């Protein structure tokens, strides 16, 4: 008797769990489809930027949000998914040419993946953006053999020159200027204005 009850209970559990997983994956696929259709369309970006302006009064995207699913999966798994509009196309090309030694780590991809991400990054790079803050990142420091970094662009340095190192490298809640989202709480949405900066363990930074 007890065994029969256990078996029936297990059967119900299986049906429910399969149903849940299936509806979850359908939802995910629908999102993915919408995502793919949106990727690369500047109208979609404008709509998204408009939506964010409505949800965050007084805020707007400084840099077009990164919306490419392949980019998020291959690059955003290890680090903040820096928006393509944070570096010029020439910098993205150099980064994509040297994934085997990606700032000291191996980030190699197969050719198809690499080509797709390269296209996305260069097509949406800072030097092709209509947004003024994004365009400011298009200028790289002159004569530099090292791999380009967002944090070594002249514009980045200028904007962060007043931040003491104890708030960043010496701060376990931040660690590095590379972790944009530690302080720019809406960095994922491409919003970098200083009124939304909160430095972990320090508080608001609004000069």
């Amino acid at each position, binding site marked *: 008797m007890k065994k029969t009850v256990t078996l029936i209970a297990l059967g119900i559990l299986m049906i429910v769990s399969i149903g849940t997983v299936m509806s979850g994956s359908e939802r995910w696929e629908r999102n993915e489809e919408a995502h793919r259709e949106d990727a690369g369309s500047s109208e979609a970006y404008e709509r998204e930027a408009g939506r964010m302006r409505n949800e965050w009064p007084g805020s707007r995207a400084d840099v077009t949000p990164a919306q490419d699913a392949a980019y998020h999966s291959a690059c955003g798994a290890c680090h*903040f998914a820096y928006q393509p509009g944070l570096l010029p196309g020439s910098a993205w090309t150099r980064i994509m040419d040297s994934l085997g030694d990606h700032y000291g780590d*191996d980030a190699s991809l197969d050719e198809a993946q690499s080509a797709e991400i390269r296209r996305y990054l260069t097509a949406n790079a800072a030097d092709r953006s209509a947004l003024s803050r994004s365009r400011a990142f298009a200028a790289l420091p002159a004569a530099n053999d090292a791999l380009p970094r967002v944090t070594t662009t002249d514009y980045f340095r200028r904007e962060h020159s007043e931040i003491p190192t104890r708030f960043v490298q010496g701060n376990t809640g931040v660690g590095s200027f590379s*972790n944009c989202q530690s302080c720019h709480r809406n960095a994922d949405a491409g919003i970098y204005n200083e009124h939304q900066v909160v430095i972990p363990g320090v508080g608001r930074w609004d000069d």
Partner: protein
Amino acid sequence: MKGTLHCGLMAILVSTGAYGSVQDILQGYAHTGAGPFDPAAGKAAWVKAHRSTHSAEPRSCSSCHGTDLTRAGRHVKTGKPIEPLAVSANPSRLSDPHKVETWFRRNCRWTLGRDCTPQEKGDFIRYISNP
């Protein structure tokens, strides 16, 4: 009890497609002459520390993924959270053979300084599917 648990686990694996892809992945390695695959060997290799020319600290799989695969990890360099690897905790794991190979290539080179052999990869897969 163990049978019920096994049955439940199989139901989850089958329903998410991970079970089929795990079999496909292991079969691919077996075709190269590797096998049988041993989760205990995968578990032992998981925590083995390797010296690296890129960092002062030795590296292991657990540097980023931790030792409890049912819990989230943390990228040792960037601090970015990494979702659990265990299929029981994260059903999407091991469901895409192409993704599995991409991350084996990157992470074996990062950790061991070389590609993993099919035998090593098979042992890891068995460990990750049932840690």
